C-alpha cells in the first residue's frame, strides 16, 4: 500500500475564476499535467470547486453514508459555519456543477444531505474551539450580525481578539433571521448555529443599537472594523398610484422581516407579488400562509430569465401560485385611497442589433389584475448613509465602497467589507466565503503583515488501496435517480407560517442519496513509468474517458479521444510520453471515479488517491505558524 500525505505549502491558493493550471498549448502537443498544483485536482472535485467556501463535499457525504453525522457536520462547520441553515436555504452552486448531473439526469442532492448531517448529529459542544486563555490585545468592531460578520467572529475569536459586534436588531443572524421565512428555516436552527458563535463568551454584542456614524465608531480606537451590514434597502417602484395606495403596497424584504419578527400577521385575500427573484418567491409563499388565497407572481422578464432558483419557483407553483411573465407594471389603481389592482403593459423579448435581449411593448392592450395588497420585490440595494465620505473610504460611481476582491480591504486599510455589503446582494454561502477571507486579512493587518499574501490551502493526497480489489471508499456508483425530499402535507403546511415545508431526508433516504455521489475527490493518479500500455484501463472504463494516443495540441487532442472531449471547462489529464511515444490522456469530464482502471491495471500505474483540500482560515493560518 502506497500511502503518502503531502502538504503543498509552496503552492498558491486556488484562483476562483480559472483553473490556474497552465497549458501552454505548444504545437508539439499538450505538456504533461502538473498534478502537484492543488488547483488541478481541486477542479476535478466540481462541487468543492464551485462552492464559494470550498466545502469538501464528497468527504462529508461519505461520513454521512458511514453514519458519522457529527463528523460530517463538523467538516461542514469548518468550511461553511452554518450547515443546518445552509442545508435548508443554500443557493447550492455545487449542484449545477455536480458531475452526476453530466452522466445522468440530476445532480446529487448535496444541499439536503448537509441537512441530514445537521439533523442527526450529536452534541457538538465539546468539538467547538475553546475560549482562548490569553487575549492578543487587538480590538475589532463588526457591523451587522449576519453570516459574514459571524464568520469573521468564528475565525478570529479563538486567536484572542476582543470582538465587538453591532446590530440594529435585538438578535443575531442578520438576513438569515429577518428575511428567510420560518417555513423554510425554523427559528431553533438559527438560534442553535448563531449560538455556537455568540453564546460562548467570545464576543461582546451591542444589539439593538444601529451604527449611525463610522467616524464616531472609529473614534473608539478599534484596530480594525469589519462592515457586514448587508444590502438592507429594498428597491421601490415609482409608478403612478404608488403614494395614493401606499397603505397596501409593501417593500418585500421589509415586509418579510416584519413577518419574521411578528409585527405583521395578516395580508389581504388577493395578493400580487412583483419581481422574479428568490425574495419574490419567499413573499408569495409567505402570503399564502397569512391569509392570501389568490396570490400571483407577476414578472417583467420571461420565466427562464427569472433570477429565482429553479427549485424556489417550483416550490411556489407547487403551492398553487401562478407566475405571469412579460408584464411590466404601469400603474397602481386605487379607489378612495384603497388599492384596487395593478395595470401592466405587455412586452415581448426581442434581440437588438447587438444581440442583447430587450423587452419591447407587444402592442397588445394593457392588462389589469385586481388585488388587495402588493409586495414589491424588484431587487435590493446597499446603503451606506452612515459612512461619512471623508473617513478614508473611497466610493465608486455607483456609490459603493471600493473593496479589494481578494483581501476585502477598503481604501481605509483598517476597514474591511464582506457579504452583501462588499459587492452587492448575493447569498449566505458567499457571505461566509467573504467572512473567511476578510478574517485572514484582518488578522494579517492587525499583526502588521501583508494582507495581499494569502495562506495556501492544505492538501492531502492519499492512496485508497486496501487490497487487490478493495478500496477504502465505496467505489460502485448507485444507479438510483435523485431522491425527492419528503414534504409536509400541503393543507397542513399552508396553515402555519412556522410549519417547515420540507421534512428532510430520513437516515435511510439520506444513505440512498449519498450512494449517488461519485467520490470525485478520489482521484485517478497515473504513474507513466509503470505503464506497459496493455490497454486494460481503456477497455474497462465505463465512460470511455481514457485514451492512449499520439500527443497533439489541445483542441486537436480533444477530438482524437475514444469519446470526444467536448466539455472545454473540464481538463484533460495528460501523461509524460510512454514507451511507444504516445501519451495517456484522461478526460476528467464524466469520470465515475469507480477505480476500475486501477483495478484492471497490472502494474499499479493507476492508483485511486483521495485528494482532500481544506482552505486555510485565519485560525489555522495563525496557529500553524505559532
Amino acid at each position, binding site marked *: 500500500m502506497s500511502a503518502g500525505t503531502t502538504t503543498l505549502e509552496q503552492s498558491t491558493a486556488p484562483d476562483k475564476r480559472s483553473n490556474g493550471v497552465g497549458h501552454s498549448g505548444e504545437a508539439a502537443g499538450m505538456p504533461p499535467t502538473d498534478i502537484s498544483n492543488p488547483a488541478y485536482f481541486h477542479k476535478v472535485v466540481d462541487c468543492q470547486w464551485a462552492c464559494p467556501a470550498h466545502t469538501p463535499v464528497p468527504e462529508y457525504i461519505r461520513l454521512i453514508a458511514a453514519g458519522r453525522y457529527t463528523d460530517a457536520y463538523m467538516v461542514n462547520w469548518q468550511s461553511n459555519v452554518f450547515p443546518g441553515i445552509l442545508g435548508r436555504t443554500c443557493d447550492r452552486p455545487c449542484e449545477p456543477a455536480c458531475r452526476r448531473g*453530466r*452522466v*445522468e439526469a440530476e445532480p446529487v442532492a448535496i444541499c439536503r444531505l448537509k441537512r441530514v448531517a445537521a439533523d442527526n448529529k450529536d452534541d457538538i459542544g465539546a468539538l467547538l474551539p475553546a475560549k482562548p486563555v490569553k487575549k492578543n490585545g487587538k480590538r475589532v468592531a463588526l457591523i451587522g450580525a449576519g453570516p459574514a460578520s459571524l464568520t469573521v467572529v468564528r475565525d478570529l475569536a479563538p486567536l484572542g481578539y476582543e470582538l465587538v459586534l453591532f446590530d440594529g436588531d435585538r438578535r443575531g443572524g442578520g438576513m438569515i433571521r429577518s428575511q428567510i421565512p420560518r417555513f423554510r428555516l425554523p427559528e431553533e436552527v438559527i438560534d442553535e448555529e448563531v449560538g455556537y458563535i455568540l453564546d460562548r463568551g467570545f464576543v461582546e454584542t451591542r444589539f439593538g443599537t444601529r451604527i449611525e456614524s463610522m467616524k464616531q465608531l472609529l473614534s473608539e480606537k478599534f484596530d480594525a472594523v469589519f462592515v457586514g451590514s448587508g444590502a438592507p434597502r429594498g428597491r421601490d417602484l415609482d409608478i403612478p398610484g404608488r403614494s395614493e395606495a401606499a397603505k397596501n403596497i409593501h417593500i418585500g424584504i421589509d415586509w418579510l422581516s416584519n413577518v419574521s419578527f411578528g409585527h405583521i400577521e395578516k395580508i389581504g385575500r388577493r395578493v400580487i407579488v412583483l419581481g422574479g427573484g428568490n425574495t419574490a418567491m419567499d413573499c408569495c409563499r409567505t402570503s399564502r400562509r397569512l391569509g392570501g388565497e389568490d396570490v400571483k407572481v407577476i414578472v417583467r422578464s420571461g420565466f427562464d430569465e427569472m433570477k429565482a432558483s429553479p427549485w424556489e419557483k417550483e416550490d411556489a407553483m407547487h403551492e398553487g401560485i401562478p407566475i405571469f411573465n412579460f408584464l411590466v407594471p404601469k400603474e397602481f389603481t386605487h379607489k378612495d385611497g384603497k388599492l384596487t389592482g395593478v395595470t401592466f403593459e405587455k412586452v415581448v423579448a426581442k434581440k437588438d442589433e447587438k444581440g442583447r435581449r430587450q423587452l419591447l411593448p407587444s402592442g397588445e392592450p394593457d392588462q389589469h389584475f385586481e388585488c388587495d395588497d402588493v409586495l414589491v420585490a424588484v431587487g435590493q440595494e446597499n446603503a451606506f448613509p452612515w459612512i461619512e465620505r471623508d473617513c478614508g473610504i473611497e466610493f465608486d460611481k455607483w456609490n459603493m465602497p471600493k473593496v479589494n476582491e481578494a483581501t476585502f480591504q477598503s481604501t481605509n486599510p483598517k476597514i474591511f467589507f464582506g457579504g452583501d455589503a462588499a459587492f452587492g446582494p448575493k447569498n449566505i454561502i458567499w457571505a461566509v466565503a467573504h467572512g473567511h477571507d476578510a478574517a485572514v486579512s484582518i488578522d494579517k493587518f492587525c499583526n502588521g503583515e501583508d494582507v495581499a499574501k494569502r495562506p495556501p490551502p492544505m492538501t492531502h493526497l492519499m492512496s485508497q488501496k486496501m487490497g487487490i*480489489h*478493495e478500496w477504502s471508499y465505496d*467505489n*460502485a*456508483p448507485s*444507479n438510483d435517480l435523485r431522491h425527492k425530499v419528503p414534504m409536509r402535507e400541503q393543507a397542513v403546511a399552508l396553515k402555519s407560517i412556522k410549519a417547515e415545508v420540507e421534512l428532510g431526508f430520513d437516515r435511510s433516504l439520506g444513505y440512498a442519496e449519498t450512494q449517488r455521489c461519485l467520490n470525485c475527490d478520489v482521484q485517478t493518479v497515473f504513474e507513466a513509468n509503470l505503464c*506497459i*500500455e*496493455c*490497454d*486494460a484501463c*481503456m*477497455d*474497462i472504463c*465505463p*465512460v*470511455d*474517458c481514457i485514451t492512449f494516443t499520439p500527443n497533439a495540441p489541445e483542441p486537436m487532442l480533444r477530438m482524437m479521444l475514444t*469519446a*470526444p472531449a*467536448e466539455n472545454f471547462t473540464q481538463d484533460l489529464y495528460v501523461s509524460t510520453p510512454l*514507451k*511507444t511515444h504516445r501519451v495517456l490522456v484522461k478526460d476528467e469530464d*464524466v469520470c*465515475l471515479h*469507480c477505480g*476500475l482502471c486501477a*483495478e*484492471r*491495471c*497490472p*502494474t499499479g500505474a493507476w492508483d485511486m488517491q483521495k485528494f482532500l483540500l481544506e482552505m486555510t482560515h485565519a485560525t489555522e493560518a495563525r496557529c500553524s505558524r505559532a
Partner: protein
Amino acid sequence: MTWITKPKLHHPKLPVNALGFTHRDYEGAVSTLCAGCGHDSISAAIMQACFEIDLPPHRLAKLSGIGCSSKTPTYFLGQSHGFNSVHGRMPSVLTGANLANRELVYMGISGDGDSASIGLGQFAHCIRRGVNMVYIVENNGVYGLTKGQFSATADKGSKSKKGVSNPDSPMDMVSLALIAGASFVGRSFSGDKKQLVELIKAAIAHKGAAFLDVISPCIAFNNHAGSTKSFDYVREHNEAVNALEFIEGKEEITVDHDPGTTINVTQHDGSVLRLKKLAEDHDPTDRASVMNFIQRHNARGEIVTGLLYVEPDSEDLHDRLGVTARPLNALSDADLCPGSDALDKINAGLR
C-alpha cells in the same frame, strides 16, 4: 477480476450504430482474467468490430474450448449464442453448428494450448474443410492456467519466467493455416487495436475459413525480458505488412488515393478490403509467395502482422457439400421426410 460490476452509466455522447446500439451494448460479463491480460484487449476489439459492422448480437455464435482464451467469450456480446466445449474440440462443435444453421456468424475463440497442442488435429481439419467462420487464436506462448509452462507456440530459445530456455521448435499457426488451405489469414497483436478491429471486421465478412493469430501477452507468466511474446518484444519486432481499411459493401468507394501503394480486394459479399502496402515484396493474394514471405521474415526474427493472405473468390463447406441453403431448423417435416416415392427414386439411382 474486479469485485464490482461495471457501472451502467456511460458517456453521454457515445456514438450509436445503425441498430441504435452503443459499443457498451456489445459487452459481456466483467472479465475474471488477470488484470492487464492481452485477451481482454482482444475481447474489446471483437466488441468494437461487431459494433462497427452493426451486427445484431443474437446473430453471433461464439464457441471455445478450454483455457484462459476459451473463457473470454463470456466477456463479450452477452446477448449472443455461446458454447464452451471440451479441450481442443471447439472446431468439431463449430463445424456441426455451422452445418445445422449457416445463417449465424461463427466465431471460434481458442488459444495456443487449445489449438496448437491438444486440438492441433481439429484445428487443421476445420480449416481444411473451409468452414465459414472466424477462428481466433489468442496466442501467448504459455500455459497460463497451469502457471507458465512453454506452450507449443513458444519460440525456440525464448525464456520462461524462471529463466529456462525453450529447447523445442514452435508451431507457427499462420503457416499452418496457410498450408491447411485457409482462405483468409491474418496476424495481429492485442496491443494494436486499430489493426485488430479492421482484421476482425474483414474476417467476419469473409466467406470460408478465416484465421487470425493474435499475439496476446500473458501478463502473469510471459511478459518478462527474454520472452518473445511480451509487450516490449512484440512492439520492437512487429512488422506490419499493410494497413487494412475494411469498407462495407453498402458504402460507396471513393477515388483511390494512392494507386500503386494501395490495393483493393473485393470479397464475395461486396465488402472491400483496402490495403495500404507497407512491405514491398508482399502480395496478399498469392499463397505461395506469402508462405515464402513469412518464412523469410520469421528467420529474421520479425513478427509480420496485418492481412497476410486473402482469397477473394473463396468457397466454404456448404458450397463444397452442396447442402440446403436453409438452416435445418427452418426445414419442414415435408422437406425432411419427402415420402416413399422419393426414397424409391434414391434407391433406384443406387441400383
